[in-house]
C-alpha cells in the first residue's frame, strides 16, 4: 500500500517539476499580431489615423479583430502598401486607400516661409531644417508624407507634392502574362 502511494506521488512530483520547468523554458510570447502590425506601420506617430500613435492604432486593430470596427486604411503616410501589409497580417481583404494620391512629400515655399520653426517642432522625423527667421526646407528623402507640418504653419506655405519618379527608383513592369490581351 505505502509503496503504491509513494511511487504514484513520486511520479506526480517528477511530472509536476518537469512540466513547470518546461512551461518556463519553452514559454511562447502570446499574440505577435500587435507587434507585426506595429512593424508594418510607418512608426512616425503622426496621428492621422485618429489614434494617438502607431502602437495605439495597432492595438485598436488587434482589439477590433476581424469584425472590422477599425478600418485598415486609416494610415495615410503608409498608403496602399501599408494597407496591403495590414490586410495580410489580419487575414482580411485589402481595401482601397482613403485618398489615392500615391507617395507625396512636403514642400516649403521658401519665398513665403517666415522662419517661425512651427513645422520643425511638428515634424516627427526631423525632416525639416531651418532656424529662427531663416527659411526652412524639407529633406525630401526623410519626409514620410504624414502632413504633420501642414497644419501648424501660420502662413500656409507648406504643400504636399507628389514624388517624381527618377531614373534611380524606376521599376520594370511585370510582364502581362499569357492571358493578357494582345494589343492590335
Amino acid at each position, binding site marked *: 500500500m505505502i509503496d503504491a502511494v509513494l511511487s504514484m506521488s513520486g511520479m506526480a512530483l517528477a511530472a509536476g517539476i518537469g512540466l513547470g520547468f518546461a512551461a518556463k523554458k519553452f514559454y511562447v510570447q502570446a499574440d505577435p499580431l500587435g507587434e507585426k502590425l506595429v512593424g508594418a506601420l510607418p512608426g512616425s506617430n503622426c496621428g492621422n489615423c485618429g489614434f494617438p500613435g502607431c502602437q495605439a492604432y495597432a492595438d485598436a486593430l488587434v482589439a477590433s479583430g476581424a469584425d472590422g470596427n477599425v478600418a485598415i486604411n486609416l494610415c495615410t503616410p503608409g498608403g496602399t502598401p501599408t494597407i496591403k501589409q495590414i490586410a495580410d497580417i489580419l487575414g482580411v481583404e485589402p481595401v482601397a486607400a482613403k485618398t489615392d494620391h500615391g507617395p507625396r512629400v512636403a514642400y516649403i515655399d521658401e519665398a513665403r516661409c517666415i522662419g517661425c520653426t512651427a513645422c520643425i517642432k511638428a515634424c516627427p522625423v526631423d525632416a525639416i531644417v531651418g532656424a529662427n527667421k531663416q527659411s526652412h526646407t524639407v529633406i525630401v*528623402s526623410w519626409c514620410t508624407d504624414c502632413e504633420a507640418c501642414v497644419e501648424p504653419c501660420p502662413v500656409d506655405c507648406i504643400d504636399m507634392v507628389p514624388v517624381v519618379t527618377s531614373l534611380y527608383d524606376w521599376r520594370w*513592369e511585370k510582364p502581362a502574362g499569357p492571358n493578357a490581351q494582345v494589343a492590335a
Partner: protein
Amino acid sequence: MLGSFHGGVHPHGNKGMASHKAIEPLPMPQRLYVPLHQHAGQPCDPCVTVGQKVLKGEEIGRSDAWVSTPIHAPTSGTVVGIEEYPAGHPSGLTMLTVVIDPDGEDRWSDSIAGIADPMNAEPAVIQERIRWAGIVGLGGAVYPSFIKMTPPKGKKVETLLINGAECEPYLTSDERVMVERAKETIAGIEIMMHTLPTSKCVIGIEDNKPEAIKAMTEAARSYNGIRVQPMPAMYPQGARQQLVEAITGKQVPSGARLVDIGLLVHNVTTAYSIYEAVVHGKPLITRVVTVSGRGIAKPANLETLLGTPIRNLIDHCGGMKPGVRKVILGGPMMGLAVDNLDVPVVKGIAGVLALLQNEIVDKPEQPCIRCGRCVQACPMSLVPSEMAWRAKVNQLDVMPELHLNDCIECGSCGFVCPSNIPLVQYFRYAKLAIQADRRAQKKLDMDKARTKAKAARVEQEKLEKERQKEAMKAAMAARKKAAAEAAPAEAAPAAPAAPATETVAAAVATDAAPVAEGAAALSDAESKAARAARAAQAARAARAAKAAKEQA
C-alpha cells in the same frame, strides 16, 4: 585546353552587315548631350557652369565617391545648359546632362599629356590615370576600370583575360578595333599587365572573327606571355563568368569576385582606351559604335563622340528603311529598345540597331509547357522557369534560394523558350522589386529611428526645462530668504523679530522714502533682495486689489 561553358545558345550572328566596314569618324554633331552618369556607381556632379567655354578633354563632371569616374568634354565649345535630358534608359526618363555647343575647333585642353615611360611608371600613377580618364568596362557593364586595375590587398591576379568574344549578334565594334588597332590594343594590354602586375594574358576571340584573330596574333607575337585564344562562337561567351569557364575551365563561385580565383577580365576596347589614356593622355570621350540591322540603309562602324544623339548616327548611315519595328541600344540579346532617337551615345553603348519585323520576336506569351529548354540553355545553371513562376505570383522571398542575383540577364532562356515567355523581363522585374522593397524597409526603419530620437530629445528638453524651473524656484526661495534676513537689518527698529511675511510688508512699508537712502547704501546682494521683496509685495498688492475688485 579550351573547354566550353554550361548552357548557351547559337543565335544567328548577323555580323556580316558591318564586320567588313572600316571605322569611320562621325562628323561633329550640332550639339552634344553628355549625361553625368555613364558608369556603374555614383553619378557625377557637374563642375562647369552654363556659358563656360570648355576645351576637349576637360573635366565637366566628377564625384567624390570611390565607385565613380569623371566625365570629360568630348570637344571644345560652350556649355549651353546643364539640364534634365532623356537618357538611353528603358524608362525613357531624364538624367542630368551637360549640353555643349561645339565651336568647331576641336581643340584639346593644354593639360593633355601622356605618361612618358609607362612601362617604368609606378602602378599607382597608371591607376590614377585610368581613373582620371573616366575609363569604364566598355563591354557594357561600365564598371570603373581603375577599381578592377587595383587588386585588393592580399589578392593577386595570376592571369589577365582580355574579352574579344563579342558574342552579341550584329555588333562589330570590338572586332573592328582589334583589326584596325591591334598594335595599340596590345600595347594597352602590356601596360595593364605591368600595372597589375601579372605575366600571363589570354585574349579570347570567337572564331567568327578570323581577321581579328589574325591581326591580334600578329601584334602579340613579339610579347611573351600574351596568347590569343580562338574560341568557337557561342552566346553568351562574352559574359565574364562564361569567358573564364571557356578559357580556364574554372567556375566563378556565386557571389565571389574574379580576383578571388586569381583572374581578371577586361574588354578588348577597354584595353585600347587605357592605351590612349596612358600613352597619349586622352580621356574616354569617344567610342566605336556599330550602326546595323536590316532597317539601316548603310550599316557602319562609327567613331562617335560621347553625347551624340543616336539620330545623327542613323542619319549618317543613310537613315532608316521603312518598316523598322524596334531601335535597340546595344545588342539584340541584352540591349534596350528605345522610342526616342534624341538619346545620346554613352560609354556603354556598343551598337545602335534598327530591326525590321523579320528580325524580332513579338509573339504573345503562351503558358509554360515545362519543356526545360531554358534550364538547359542557362549559362549560370539556374532554373529560369521556376524563377519566372515565382516572380509571376510575387513570391520574392524565395528568390535568394533560386539565386536570382546570379542571373546575368543574357536572355538565353527567353531565346529558346517555345512559349515566347519573356523570362528576362520577369527577372528584371523581380530584381528591381526586391531592391525597392529593401529600400522601402530601410526607410521605414530609419523613420522609426528618427521618430524615437526626436521623441527622446523632446522628452530630454522637457526634463531640462523642468530642472531649470526647479532651479529658478530654488533661487527665488533663496532670495526671499535673503530678503527676509536683510529686512530686519534694514527695518530693525520697526519689527526686529517679526515673521518673514510681515518683515517683507514692513520692508515695503518703509519703501516710501527713508529706506531708499539706506537701500542705496546696502551691498549689491542686499539691494537685490530688497528689490525682490518689493516686487513680491507689489504682486501681492495687485492680487489683493483684483480680489477686492471681484468682490465689489
